[in-house]
């Protein structure tokens, strides 16, 4: 029932312009993950939580449909969802 904050989906179809993170990398909450160009804007997609990039499902230059799981973040055991 609880929305899964650690999963980053595309909010609209668009093009991945830049990817700033790699799998396995630690990210802080609010850190830039990637740029999704859509709605006439290069939208900076930021990390909703602090955690580790568990899976990265997009590459620079690819087109993504709406609702694609672009990045999944994992938590360390001692990390709290802030």
């Amino acid at each position, binding site marked *: *029932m*609880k929305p899964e904050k650690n999963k980053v989906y595309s909010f609209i179809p668009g093009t991945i312009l830049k990817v700033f993170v790699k799998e396995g990398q630690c990210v802080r909450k609010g850190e830039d993950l990637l740029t999704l160009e859509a*709605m*006439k*804007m*290069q*939208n900076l997609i930021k990390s909703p939580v602090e955690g580790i990039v568990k899976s990265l499902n997009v590459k620079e230059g690819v087109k993504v449909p709406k609702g694609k799981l672009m990045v999944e973040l994992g938590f360390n055991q001692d990390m709290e969802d802030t």
Partner: protein
Amino acid sequence: MGLKRKILELHKKREAVLKGGGDKAIEKQAAMGKMTARERIISLCDPDSFHEYDLFVEHEARDFDMDKKVLHGDGVIIGTGTIHGAPVCLFAQDFTVAGGSLGMMHARKITKIMDHALKMKVPLIGINDSGGARIQEGVNSLAGYGEIFFRNTLSSGVIPQISVILGPCAGGAVYSPALTDFVFVVDKISKMFITGPEVIKTVLGEEISMEDLGGARVHSEITGNAHFFAKSEAECFNQIKKLVSFIPWNNMKKAARVEPREPKPEYKISDIVPGDPRQPYDIRDVIKAIADDSDFFEIQEMWASNMVIGFGRMNGETIGFVANQPLVLAGVLDVDSSDKAARFIRFCNAFNIPIITLVDLPGYLPGIDQEHAGVIRHGAKVLYAYSEATVAKMTVILRKAYGGGYIAMSSRHLRADFVFAWPTAEIAVMGPEGAANIIFRKEIMESKDPDKTRKQKVKEYKEKFANPYVAAARGYVDSVIEPEETRKLLLHAIEVSGNKSVFLPNKKHGIPPF
């Protein structure tokens, strides 16, 4: 008995009642990380300004052995005080007395202070911390809620109404806050829902904690029911005090003026907005570059963040800011952001607060979800709210203003009083890509190199129409201005509109699409 003894007797009686539910219950309240009702009122009001009414009220319930129970003050404190010198009426439910449950006399105390607020034309602040209806008092409890809701509605648009959720607020009780103008919540303390986790489990088999169902974060990020989120009660009270400083006592007054101050030099307006319209930026920095002292008090910060709303001041006068946020979802209009903006515009209009609208949006968010969620009727709320508003309306178009989004965001056509556009503004029926594809469809299709032709046509369209001058040529935009001139011209606009008056057709009330 002499006067002295009578006074002593009063002191004794007071002392007993002031303890609320007694030491044990107060300890329990503290163990939950909560202040008592009395501590809350004292922290919120100016020192020594609170005067309590109905301290000695007692309940009249007789069933279920209730006649043997003493409930001090019947579980609620009411009275008047001042905040930053502004008079306010307050009530605070006392969870230490029968869980702050609402019985008949409890409700009568609340409605008494509500009537007082409406009569005296001062803001009403309600602190909610209650287990809900007092079951032993049956239908009298329900009557009490109904009487409260009725008064909330009657007072709406006459006096500002503020709800503070500092504990449980469940079942019917949630509708009083929902009818008021601003709802404050505190992390881990506030809990609001119509039906709690137990009922949900019994009826639907779904399991969820109180926090995940209706905690402070849920209402600040997901439902939009709350307007201000705080990490502690102390922070929450500071937020309330700040809000009170921005709003007038009632709908016949203007908010109190403060000493005007220039924006802080670190907010340099021409450095904030990128020239490339595809580059995002934080619109709140633009507001801070315009507003007095760069002070912007944001409302519903974490919900529908693609729209930014809140209060600031210009030349010492309170202003409502409504702005698209390019940083979130490119600043599109959608169901929630429309709802958020519309309600705020109506608050500003009801309470004589001029509105500055900053425009930079690609339009309405396309999609099946949005269409099926009713973006037509929700989006219409923005049009309605701006059209109906008679306060001074100033609009600045920074970059994109396309299609329906252009019309909705306080355009001239909805009777904005001043429409300024930056030279970077793009005011057109739709974006160059979309427009070129439609207008030049045949030429592109029949071309030897459709891609090249399309790019060429997009470029042509962009040069010809993606600018402020087509709209300026029709007078839809009053002036094309340099970003640096924005504050100066907005101050001028506010000065000019000081005596604005508008005549509207006579009606009982409009029927906005909600």
